[in-house]
Every structure is written in C-alpha cells, then in structure tokens.
C-alpha cells in the first residue's frame, strides 16, 4: 500500500498511470489500438513535440520558462533552408541539422543575455522574443512556403527505420529523424545527470539565492541554458522540415503551450528544481496519445479540446494534490508520535 502510494505521489508514476488507463479505455473502445503500429505512429507524431519538450524541460528545471522555442525552431528551419538553397551546394543531411542548431543557439543566446545577463523575467522575455523572432522571420526571411526542398532532405525523409503493416493493412513507418530525438535524449540525460552543469541547473531552479551563495555563477549558467535550449529548438525545427517535406514559416508557432503542457505533465514544475528526461518523454507520449487518438475513440471534434484540457488539469494537478495530502498526513502524525 505504501509503495503504491509512493508511486502515485511521484509525478512520473501518475503520468504513467494516466497513460495506461487512457490506453486501456482506448483499447476497449477500439481494439485496433493495441498494435505495434499504434506505438510507431505515436513515436512519429510526438517527434517534434518531444525534441522541443526536452529543451523546455531544462529551462523549467532552472526555474525559468521558455515560450519562444517554437519561434526559434521556425526561424532556424526556414533560415537553414534559405541558406542551403541560396548557396546551392550539396551538403550532407547532418550539415543541415548543424546549421539549424547553430542558428537556434544564436537566437537562444539573445534569450540568455536578456534573462541571465540583464536579469529580466523569463516569461516576459520569451513572450517578447516569441513575437520578435517570428516577426523577424516573416519580415526579413519571407512568408512563402518552400516546397521544393533539397534532394538530401527528401532522401532523408524517405529513409525509414521500421516499416510495418497495421491492423488494416496500411503501411506505418518510423522515419530516420527519430534518431534526432534519440540523440538529443541521450545528450541531455548526460548533461542533466552526470555533469556539474546539470547539477547547477537544478540548484538554480531549487533556490537561486542558495545557488549563488555556494558560488555558482548564475548569470553564466543561465546564458548557457538558453543557448542549449535554442540549439535543441533549432534541431526540432529541422526535424519538422524532414517530416513535412516543406518549410512553411507559419508552422510550429502555436504549439508551445502543448509542449509546455507535456513537460509539466512529465513532472517538471513551473516553480523550478524538478524535471527529468524520462518524465518529459512520458509526458510527450501522453499528450501525443491524447491529441492523436481521440478520433479513434470516436470523440467528436468539438469535444477533443475539452477532453485534452481536462486530462491536462487532472494530470498536472493530481500529483500536487496528492503530494500536499501526504505532507498534511505526515504533519498530523508527527505530534502523536512525539507525544
């Protein structure tokens, strides 16, 4: 009983529970849900959200928030395509991702300097840069869709890791861009768990005051956080191009709340200090599942947003309520034991 309670109290536990419950209900309504093909579809559909979410998780863990990541991603993806088409050179696909990451890191640096350097509020700064980056993209880089993307990108989009048939005989495939998510996951997991920098991020998120007193150079760490988050957003943008096989400057912006919801659902707290790579991926999985399977469950379009909202409130609220109850119970117990 105690162990079960502990699982419930941990954010990942509750998300996992929600995911399983949701999957069970879906499976009951539509047995076609329980197939490997569904899993592959989910992995494919959650790809861009997942990469974005990992960057946002790091920012949340440091006690900040970043709503500008989608604009960075859109800017990086469009600028990369413009540059490559402009120089007209055959580059390997990896170079595209490097260019996008560098552009993303550059934009992230602007966030970092404003937040870390000048000490401005993260929400205000990133709300500003969300509009700033997007405006700059549409004003200076263009508003036209790039539908004739380079051959390397098309070839990469057609590269498939796994290809299977689903229950009704349609092909379902996991594109090679899934490897980008895998790579970002591994690198970020190492940074957050096995480097001093990662520890500093959590320390700042836990208590900035305390972190400063133990000698952490907060400004420098914060700038670095936003640079890394920017680079990750750039990678997400480039991944988006390889999935859609076109670069639309109006894409991506608008999904930031979905990404933040996934991260929060995955156990990161807006107040900072908490957040894990695994939890975030779980949160992304749940959000993607909710977003892309309600149709299968026969939920009408108008109801889908309502259901998504309810699940986010329950998913993020329940762990906090359980946590508070547990503490309350502890407090009630203590005087008895003492007496």
């Amino acid at each position, binding site marked *: 009983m105690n162990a079960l309670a502990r699982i419930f109290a941990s954010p990942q536990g509750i998300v996992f529970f929600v995911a399983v419950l949701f999957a069970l209900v879906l499976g009951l309504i539509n047995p076609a849900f329980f197939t490997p093909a569904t899993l592959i579809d989910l992995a494919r559909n959650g790809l861009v959200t997942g990469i974005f979410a990992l960057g946002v998780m790091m920012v949340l863990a440091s006690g900040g928030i970043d709503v500008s990541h989608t604009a960075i991603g859109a800017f990086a993806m469009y600028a990369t395509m413009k540059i490559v088409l402009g120089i007209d050179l055959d580059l390997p696909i990896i170079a595209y991702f490097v260019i996008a990451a560098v552009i993303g890191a550059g934009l992230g640096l602007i966030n970092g300097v404003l937040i870390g350097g000048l000490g401005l509020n993260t929400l205000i700064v990133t709300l500003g840069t969300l509009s700033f980056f997007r405006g700059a993209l549409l*004003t200076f880089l263009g508003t036209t869709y790039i539908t004739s993307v380079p051959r390397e990108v098309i070839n990469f989009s057609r590269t498939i890791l796994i290809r299977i048939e689903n229950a009704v005989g349609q092909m379902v495939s996991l594109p090679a861009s899934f490897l980008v998510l895998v790579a970002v996951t591994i690198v970020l997991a190492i940074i957050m768990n096995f480097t001093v920098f990662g520890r500093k991020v959590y320390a700042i998120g836990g208590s900035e005051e305390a972190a400063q007193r133990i000698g952490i150079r907060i400004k420098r760490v914060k700038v670095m956080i936003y640079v890394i988050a920017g680079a990750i957003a750039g990678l997400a943008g480039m991944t988006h191009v390889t999935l859609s096989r*076109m670069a639309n400057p109006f894409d991506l912006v608008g999904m930031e709340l979905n990404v933040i919801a996934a991260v929060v659902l995955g156990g990161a707290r807006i107040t900072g200090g908490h957040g894990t790579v695994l939890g975030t991926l779980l949160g992304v999985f749940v959000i993607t599942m909710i977003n892309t399977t309600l149709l299968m469950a026969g939920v009408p379009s108008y109801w889908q947003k309502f259901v998504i909202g309810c699940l986010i409130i329950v998913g993020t609220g329940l762990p906090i309520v359980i946590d508070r109850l547990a503490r309350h119970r502890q407090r009630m117990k203590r005087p008895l034991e003492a007496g």
Partner: protein
Amino acid sequence: MALNLRKLTAGVALGAALIVGAGAVTHAQDAKHSIVTVVKLSGIAWFNRMEEGVKEYAAETGHDATQVGPASADAALQVQMIEDLIAKKVDAITVVPNSPEALEPVLGKALDAGIKVVGHEASSLQNVTYDVEAFDNAAYGRHLMEALAQAMGGEGEYAVFVGHLTAKTHNEWVDAAIAYQKEKYPNMTLVTDKLESNEQQQTAYQKTKELLRTYPNLKGIQGSAGEDVVGAALAVEEAGLDGKVKIVGTSLVSVAGPYLETGAIDMISFWDPAKAGIAMNKVASMAIEGKEITDGMDLGVEGYNAIKLDGKVLYGQAWVDVTTDNMNDYDF
C-alpha cells in the same frame, strides 16, 4: 468656371492637363479615375498576383489604378493607409480588409468624403458601395463536393477538414458540400465530424493517419485550409494508399505543387487574385461613373460573367480548378 477649376485640381492637379481636362470634366465617364487597392499584406505571392491584375486594369483603361498594402497583416496599419487616401481625395478605394469590423469607421469616413468603397473577402462590411466576392461560399462548397464525388465514383466513405472549427468561410464551404452530398450522392457517407487542422500541415497529416486507421475503407478527403490537402496527401502516400484515397480541396499551386505533380492530390481550387483585383477596380469605376450594377450582369472579367447581386454584395463564379495538367499556369 471656378467650380470646374476646383474639380480639376482635385482630380488631376496638373497644369498640363488643364487644356485636355476642360473637355473631360463635362464627360465624367472619360475622366481618369484614381483608384487605390488596399490589400492585407504587401509582398506575399497572393497579393503580388492581385497587383498584376490591378496593373493590367490600369494599362487597359488608362485609369490611375494602384495597389498598396502594409508590411504586416495589421488592421491598424490599413486604417492609417485609408486615412491617407481620404486626405489625398482619391476617387475610389478598394480594400481587402484584415478585419472588416476594425475598418468600418474609417470606411464610413471615406464614404462621407464622397469616395467610393469596394470590398473583397468581406461580405459582412456595412460601409461599402459594393463588395466583390469571388464566389458564393455555398456554391463553392458544392463545386468541391462535385469534384470529390466524381473522383470517388459517387460512392464510398469520405471525411472533411476545416482550418479551424471557428473559421466561418471554411464551415460554410464544408456544410454546403455535405448537404449537397446527402442530396445528390446518397451512396457516399461522411465518416465523422468536421476535422480541425489548425491550418498546419502536420496536424492534417496526423489526423489523416488516424482517419485511415479508424476508417480503413476511406475513399475521399476534402480540405479547406491550404495545408489540409498537403498533409492528407503525405499521410496517404506514406500509408501506401496512393490513388485509393481521392483528395480534393482548396490550396495553391505553390503549396500543393509537389503532390499535384505525383497525383496524390486530385484537384485543388482557389480563386485568382488577379481577376478579383480587376473585378474590384471595374466595379469601383462603374460606381464612380454612376452606372448601376444589376443581378446577372457581365463584368467582362473571367469568372465574373454572370454575377449574383445580394444587397451590396456581388458574387462571381470565379473559382479556378487546378490538376496536374494545368498547374504550371499558376505561379502563386
């Protein structure tokens, strides 16, 4: 004479024109009208194409027809531009508003100043002389459904997309299409509610994947936002269902081109902004000259040969259908 002079300075304001102009004043029809088209946003392919139409009209008629538009799709910037045009005392303003409601006051001011106002994509505008719409939304929806039904052979399951469930135009297209299908093609069935793509290709893709999984016998998809058909086509292609699922909808060649080429998208429709630009300017000229516009009239512009007049709103049948055969005629 003093009156004539004032008219002249207001109209042409050029000393050189005085001699020629003296005759023109007596025949208002022959005068050079200054008509300015205010668009939502300058520099994008759609309105560049409209400008081509405006220039063509100017070259053809000799009227002073030009196009302006703000650098960002902002109603406030359009209001400023129209204020300037009122101060310049142009003869007519044609406008594609970013937000019809936001422009009502300034357009009212223009009308009070004796300027003719012609709207486009804004049938709800009150302060206009006329409003020109490329087509009646319901008729367009039926047109798309007819195309889809033809492609599907008049039977089978289909689904429809709208950009947003709150987008009025998209819903009007789709509602009319569904009603038309029920009446004319009883062997076709709509599998689920209107789906929302958020005007994002990837959302349309994901929803289509889900549709195919849930309704394996799906044979047709009708899109509304420009991205809908593209996302649907990608999903169909990936699922290995090329040719089995017919896709028809509103889009542009610049967006849907690659999929039209492969035949993954059967047909896209849109209206030609150049033609709309010419039609707006023609209507503005007629209003300046005091000519009446009547139901069933021919504006002499392709697609506007038998207009339907409903109050102040004129509807054409100016949709353009594009398949793999004629996609190279359109560069926007």
